[in-house]
């Protein structure tokens, strides 16, 4: 197995997945999986359909509880959270991990702006004295709600949705809904953002806009990203680090270039039997040798 690339600038690890196994009855969805997500990087999780990528996400964000192993999240402040022990909503609130969904889950009947305000629920709840002070019209809550709208505006601008702010979220186009879901997740102030197939169903132009948005998130807010993606143009373009899964186990881990040339990855994507991997490997090395010669 290839050693992960060491980044001299930012070598500290934000998320450490250690020996995680997830079983559903007799089915082993993830088998003894370990990988790291480094701070201020975009890490992509790729693999063929049914490789267990979304299951990894659900374990990280608390929607599933892994059968074995541990998932450690180290925040900027140095606080370490054991995500495998926390419930879904506390993972967002305490551990600062936000996520989006493969099939978009927006509040379609609320406006775009309201979607972003719901995301700031916990901040606003505290500011409104758990509703009581806010109901009595205290000033602290009014200031907080103005600040919340400002923050929503900022993210609407970044997601290029400012002119659609007052439209129902269900009325947006598919690409805009994807961007809104990312903006909504960012409104919870996460340190780690998990995106489940953000480019699925986007046209090439929307894909490019998405790449820009994701890079902006990494560079401007210092949020680390972990994403599942099938669209290789997105993965190779923007990720700093790629982890490849097949049948719930990690088969490769490294920079996009390293992964791209890993024979195991090629074999997995082309669908070669385990016994034939060595043969294919030989063929590939021959082919590259010949090409070089």
């Amino acid at each position, binding site marked *: 197995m290839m050693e992960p690339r060491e980044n001299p600038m930012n070598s500290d690890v934000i998320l450490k997945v250690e020996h995680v196994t997830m079983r559903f009855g007799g089915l082993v969805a993830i088998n003894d999986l370990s990988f790291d997500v480094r701070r201020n990087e975009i890490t992509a999780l790729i693999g063929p359909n049914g490789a267990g990528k979304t299951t990894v996400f659900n374990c990280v964000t608390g929607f599933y509880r892994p059968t074995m192993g541990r998932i450690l999240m180290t925040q900027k402040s140095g606080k370490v959270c054991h995500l495998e022990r926390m419930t879904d909503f506390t993972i*967002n*609130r305490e551990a600062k991990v936000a996520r989006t969904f493969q099939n978009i889950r927006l*509040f379609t*009947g*609320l406006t775009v702006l309201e979607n972003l305000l719901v995301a700031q629920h916990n901040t*606003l709840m505290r500011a409104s004295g758990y509703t009581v002070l806010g109901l009595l019209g205290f000033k602290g809550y009014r200031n907080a709600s103005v600040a919340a709208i400002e923050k929503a505006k900022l993210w609407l601008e970044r997601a290029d949705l400012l002119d659609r*702010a*007052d439209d129902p*979220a269900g009325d947006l186009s598919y690409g805009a809904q994807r961007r809104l879901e990312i903006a909504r997740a960012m409104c919870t102030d996460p340190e780690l953002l998990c995106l489940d197939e953000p480019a699925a169903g986007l046209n090439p132009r929307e894909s490019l806009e998405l790449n820009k948005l994701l890079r902006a998130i990494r560079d401007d807010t210092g949020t680390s990203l972990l994403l599942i993606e099938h669209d290789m143009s997105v993965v190779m373009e923007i990720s700093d680090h790629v982890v490849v899964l097949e049948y719930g186990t990690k088969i490769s881990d490294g920079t996009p270039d390293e992964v791209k040339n890993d024979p195991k990855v090629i074999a997995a994507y082309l669908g070669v039997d385990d016994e034939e991997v060595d043969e294919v490997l030989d063929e590939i090395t021959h082919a590259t040798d010949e090409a070089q010669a």
Partner: protein
Amino acid sequence: MTVQSTNPASKQESLVARGLREAFFAGLISLGMFSLYVGLKTDQNMLNELVLVPRWGMLAIFVVLAMIGRFLMIVAVQPWLAARKSARASAAHGQAEVPGFVARNLTVLAVIALVLFPPLVVGLFGMQGSLKWIDNFGIQILIYVMLAWGLNIVVGLAGLLDLGYVAFYAVGAYSYALLSSYFGLSFWLLLPISGILAAFWGMVLGFPVLRLRGDYLAVVTLAFGEIIRLVLINWVEVTKGTFGISGIAKASIFGIWSFDVSAPNNFAKAFDLPMSSAYYKIFLFYVILALCALTAYVSVRLRSMPIGRAWEALREDEIACRSLGINTVTTKLTAFATGAMFGGFAGAFFGARQGFVSPESFVFLESAVILAIVVLGGMGSLVGIAIAAVVMVGGTELLRELTFLKAVFGPDFTPELYRMLIFGLAMVIVMVLKPRGFVGSRQPTAFLHERKAVSGSFTKEGHG
């Protein structure tokens, strides 16, 4: 059915001619259909033989009715529908229509009308004559408005289907009835206590059931409503069972004036007015009006607070809520408790108004009517729900008044017996015409550029 001509020449053809032609066809078809069903009747004669009795007159009436109906459909109804449709389409293309004066100031006008209602009715019908209007219509409708607004928080905003809401109404009513009879506490002290007790029971119900969703939640809340009623019936030592509790103390004007006839500080005596029971009813009308105003104020304020937004988000997508760090259990519990609290207030008021409570008043039908008001009004909309309450409760009360129908259908006809039938039919019609209720759109709680109503096709009903 009839032949639909697509020939452009037929457009010049006058409506009446087309109507007549289609009426003729409709007549032929109905003649064919009804000649055996209606035109001939089998009967027994004196010799117990089966004979055919022709009923040509009846058949003629059926055929003529069908012809007139088709004629009116072609000449009047269809052009009217088409005109309305094109008018709506052109309005949608042009600039948005400016709402009229009434639409803009609906709330203010409604409040003014309600405040002026009792003096107006007293002026029109006299002291005794006004009783029926203020009590049967005014107070009765406002109680249901309040109950429906309370349930709206649970069903309309949070999307939790509660079929046992009447349980909290019962808790409020019995809290007032028992605490005032056993301890002699006053209405104004017991009103908040009843609300708190109902909210407490809302939480007690909420804890075990909120892990359930959709249909399962509905069934368990239904069971809870029945449990409360059965406890009230069977806990005879405290609740006097099916006899109910009578002689419940009346509410007073903050202890300054009383409405007890024997009390020295009687309201009528204090102001040297002729004795009448109408004063108490008028006072109660203003009390329930104030309670409704409180419910509306709290509902509107809560909607634009984080907790209200979380309720609506919960209705839209619970999993997304959890991914955003919202504790869905406490959010659901607050919705349940807040809704139950208003049910408790309404219950305490009900006890003070009736002077008598029994488990009879808290049957499942009450829950169903309250839920029907919420659904009919448009889930989440206070105005729509108020209209629905007026239509449903006022409408059924009005059907009691339809004594002139006796002149039409004979003296044995009792319109009261048909009121649930008519009521059910009316509901089906309304739901067919307006599937999202009277007010199907949703007003956003915050906006950047302009406030646009969200169409009902985007909002969800919630899955529990």
